[in-house]
């Protein structure tokens, strides 16, 4: 018996929830849960956890593109069946982790991963650039201002040396969100790659009556730029909306609420770079990422401007920051004016906040450092 479309409610089961995590744990994990004593990173991508009982868990971390096929997942299962007693896990940053309970098994596992035709790069631990958390982009989303998997692939290709090594002052967390909705929550990342729109929505008067609730569309605008209006469609006057383009901040919230207000555009859309965010409470409090490059074009398939900008920031940070210093901690220590100078990023008024709570970020003291920006002014 299976689903019967004639009796859709017959035999229906609901609200089962996920399978219990207790069924999913590798034996060494299940046996030592709550008893772990310490851990060590033996090599990039290879972790050792030691239990109070003396038991050891070796973990091998592998980068994945997140957008993966069932054939790929089955291949991961083949590896886990062969080496890991039929268990594996994923990390919150889209890496895959294989766990075994001895050094010998770990060596065999690493050999296997390196020998596969499918690329299974080992790394993403410690002071590295680990996998990029990202969204759907043009592969699946209806509101993106850029692609996700494409730029991620291009950036990770370029930063690949940093995935498989631990040479940076601290971990560098990169995230990509393909529009301002930020499904990828890039707002607290060391480096955020963010899809942005720059053209106000168009109004599709011929469709708006059928697909939008006008009061919701009007209320959706945080700046009150969407107003009621009238238009003529096929000789008939209809109720619609208009947009005060001067007040638009291109957030796209109106399009989310009203499909007759599309704003995506090949020239208008692109990428902004924000830096210096962190989630962890270690040393300094969690920080938001700050906008340092307001716009880079969507140059598919390899987004060279974005790749170059990210590499430049990573390299200057790697050279200049102290051990343990996260990117945002470094930028705050040297001062943001020095960050722009060192990274050779031209500062523009787009980086000065003029939205809500903006004043909190304005400098209200005479304490600043002289940089190329002040030189340019005093000249």
């Amino acid at each position: 018996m299976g689903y019967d479309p004639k009796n859709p409610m017959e035999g229906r089961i609901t609200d089962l929830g996920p399978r219990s995590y207790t069924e999913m744990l590798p034996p060494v994990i299940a046996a030592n849960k709550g008893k772990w004593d310490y851990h060590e990173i033996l090599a990039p991508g290879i972790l050792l956890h030691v239990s109070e009982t003396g038991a050891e868990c070796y973990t091998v971390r592998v980068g994945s593109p997140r957008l993966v096929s069932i054939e790929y997942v089955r291949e991961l299962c083949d590896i886990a069946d062969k080496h890991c007693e039929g268990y594996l896990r994923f990390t919150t940053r889209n890496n895959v982790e294989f766990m075994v309970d001895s050094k010998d098994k770990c060596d065999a596992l690493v050999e296997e991963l390196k020998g596969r035709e499918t690329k299974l790069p080992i790394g993403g631990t410690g002071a590295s650039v680990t996998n990029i958390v990202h969204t759907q982009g043009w592969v699946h989303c209806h509101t993106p201002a850029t692609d996700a998997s494409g730029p991620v692939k291009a950036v990770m290709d370029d930063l690949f040396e940093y995935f498989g090594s631990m040479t940076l002052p601290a971990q560098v967390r990169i995230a990509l969100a393909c529009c301002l909705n930020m499904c990828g929550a890039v707002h607290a990342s060391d480096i955020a790659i963010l899809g942005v729109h720059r053209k106000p929505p168009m109004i599709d008067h011929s469709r708006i009556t059928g697909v939008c609730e006008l009061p919701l569309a009007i209320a959706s605008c945080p700046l009150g730029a969407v107003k009621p209006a009238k238009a003529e469609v096929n000789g008939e006057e209809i109720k619609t909306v208009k947009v005060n383009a001067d007040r638009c901040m291109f957030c796209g919230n109106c399009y989310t609420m009203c499909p007759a207000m599309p704003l995506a555009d090949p020239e208008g859309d692109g990428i902004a770079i924000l830096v210096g965010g962190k989630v962890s409470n270690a040393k300094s409090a969690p920080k938001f990422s700050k906008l340092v490059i307001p716009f880079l074009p969507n140059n598919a398939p390899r987004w060279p401007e974005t790749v170059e900008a990210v590499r430049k920031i990573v390299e200057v940070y790697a050279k200049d920051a102290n051990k343990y210093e996260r990117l945002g901690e470094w930028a705050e220590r040297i001062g943001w004016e020095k960050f722009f100078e060192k990274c050779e990023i031209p500062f523009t008024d787009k980086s000065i906040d003029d939205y809500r709570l903006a004043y909190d970020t304005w400098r209200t003291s005479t304490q600043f450092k002289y940089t190329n920006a002040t030189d340019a002014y005093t000249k």
Partner: protein
Amino acid sequence: MAKHDTPLLDELENGPWPSFVTDMKRQAETHPECWDILGQLELSFKDRITHWKHGGIVGVFGYGGGIVGRYSDKPEKFPGVEHFHTVRIAQPSGLYYSTKNLRALMDLWDKYGSGMTNMHGSTGDMILLGTRTENLEPLFWDLTHDLEQDLGGSGSNLRTPSCCLGESRCEWSCYDAQDVCYHLTMHYQDEIHRPAFPYKFKFKFSGCPNDCVASIARSDFALIGTWKDDIQMDQAAVKEYIAGNYPANGGAHAGRDWGPFDIKKEVLDLCPTNCMWMEGDELKIDNSECTRCMHCINVMPRALKPGKEKGATVCIGAKAPILDGAQFATMVIPFIEVSKDNEYENLIDVIEQVWDWWMEVGKNRERVGETMQRIGLPTFLKVMEVDAMPQHVKEPRSNPYVFWKEEEVEGGWERDVEEFRKKHAA
């Protein structure tokens, strides 16, 4: 479905990072609709714009979430992705899988879907990417009957809760994040599947202040492990670190020569409260000054551990920028016990206190953090029945505009202006 030329996407088969294009081409051999995914994506790369239509409400009977509708705006050209709905599968806590379960899920998707997935979505669900409307009910039937598992959340409901891996493989976890996550996910199945909230609501559970699941940045209700008593110290292990016998930070910096370990430079001087010092070769901590940031523990995991009196801090109201700007979660309850023994009843009480208030006063599409901003933290603390304390703020307010309540002012607000005028001529 025919193969399309994809000169732009083919460029993404080069380079050392694994290529989703190569993977998708392999999958297309048995799932030809993958050719149409590639074809439409190639067109987007050429046109530099998405080719997915706006929205589309689809789902399974009785649920208001778990499926996200998606349609191509070029169905005649790419019939394989005419319907391309997403199915969210609630993930097991900590993202561990048996290959038995993972293979069963892949077989299910082989039968009903495009062959492509996301491992995992941003909120934590397993994402099955791309199927047709008519497949949804049969897929749900097999998922519930054969695999005995369920969809995750979408829309204005409780989103699928997620957690770090907690005690399962981490020595720092101050509570069993996986178990709390699983228990509350099961407890709130109705809230996950049937939208009744002003907007989405997310739970995230992190075992310690390192917050590997980004709960403080991403969840409306963040439970972050912490402790009340002293950091546990092993002085012998401290000496091993100083002698260079144990790698600092668990070996996280091993790829570069940073010189020998310097406890003053790497631990004492980086402590945000300067509450650590050396007395001879003994490490001392003034625990009353400690803010439990984790740095010293991160650097010397074999010498230092969180205290024994463990629990969690509750932070409420994080969200991404849409619309008023990004918010971190605000610290509301400094310490709460987290125990399996009472089936997390005290956490459930706190959660429902938030929901009861937010469901009443929250506006449509207003995250709880925005409601807190609009109504104010003092009022929210009253709702939560938590007395205001200095820990609730970074600093006291600098403006004097206090919203005094009438009952707080001697004699109340009712006054007689005629009586006033008898003493004070206008």
